[in-house]
């Protein structure tokens, strides 16, 4: 019986030696490789810096305006694949009539200091924000393409 126990313990030690993954316990109670595993994914959003790298002109459009802090991909969609040139994904060109309202539609829960506008009460409900406001710098006249 005692022999069985010893055999069991030996078996356990062998299993530990054989099956504990490589790099386990080096940095803490986990597999070191898990850090790298969490890093491998390619970013889906390229980040505004990568956009500005090519689109130098467009990047300037936000400067000094109230939208200066808004990232390009906040409106134009995720463009990691576009920036890395791997696909022909193109930036979304959203309809200002819809896009502006994502943020600026009035809502009691929004901070009072945040600009809110009900399209029904503005310009007779025309709902054509882009005709008067430049989305990149809404306090200015829109740029004509």
């Amino acid at each position, binding site marked *: 019986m005692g022999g069985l126990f010893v055999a069991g313990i030996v078996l356990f030690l062998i299993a530990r030696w054989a099956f504990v993954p490589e790099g386990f316990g080096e940095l803490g109670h986990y*597999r070191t490789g898990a850090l790298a595993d969490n890093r491998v994914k390619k970013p889906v959003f390229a980040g505004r810096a990568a956009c500005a790298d090519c689109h130098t002109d467009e990047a300037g459009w936000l400067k000094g305006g109230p939208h200066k802090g808004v990232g390009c991909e*906040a409106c134009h969609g995720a463009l990691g694949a576009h920036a890395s040139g791997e696909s022909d994904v193109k930036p979304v060109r959203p309809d200002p009539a819809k896009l502006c309202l994502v943020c600026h539609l009035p809502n009691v829960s929004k901070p009072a200091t945040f600009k809110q506008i009900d399209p029904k009460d503005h310009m007779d409900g025309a709902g054509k924000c882009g005709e008067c406001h430049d989305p990149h710098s809404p306090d200015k006249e829109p740029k004509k393409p």
Partner: protein
Amino acid sequence: MSTDRRQFLSAFGKLLILTPAAAAAWEYVEAGKAEEAPGYRTADHWWAMVIDIEKCIGCGNCVRACKTENDVPLEPEYFRTWVERYHVPEGVSEHPDVDSPNGGYDGFPEKYRPGDGAKSFFVPKICNHCASSPCVQVCPVGATFESPDGVVLVDKSYCLGCRYCVQACPYGCRYIDPRTETVDKCTFCYHRITKGLTTACCETCPTGARQLGDLKNPKDPIHEFLRTHKVQVLKPQMATGSKTWYSGLDGSVR
């Protein structure tokens, strides 16, 4: 811009996205700190986040960006980050009305009237990346852990799917990914921040309500923010060492 130049730059862009060191370096160049642009070393960073309630407009950009960036299931039970709407009638902060339709993924259609005698605001939620994390404490096998740079991560190839960590998180930040039967949670976009980028939610937040910060970088604006704002963590009584600080947090938020 000439086609040639575009092609050249897009090739350069590819380099930026593909090689972490280059991307990190580039980010430093952009910030005018080219001299500090080495490859990523975990010992040099300690990640945290500040969230400014006064700036959140409940647009849901962060929720959508997070699901896109991290391939989070689109069903309304799985979120790495979500936004809650609080509505607190005067003097009843113990019983706020709270909702989070589809986690805020589709924004928040107005449901309250102005002047109804209550205050209302949005609260973005995300893993707090606790420094003494209850979820890490209870994981029986070491499949979830605090990384040396202060991010709570999951080893998906090692997770048993026992769900003990889901039970142990006081903030409801974990879910079981039905596709892999392993736990999933916010990683502070570890694949991005280690390449010099910010998280997807911070990248797409139009008002700067969220800011990722590196506490080990003395030049990070997070230091200035923490010095100049009165901040609070969620459920401080849980003593989890939360590293997600809220400014302008109401006492009714839980």
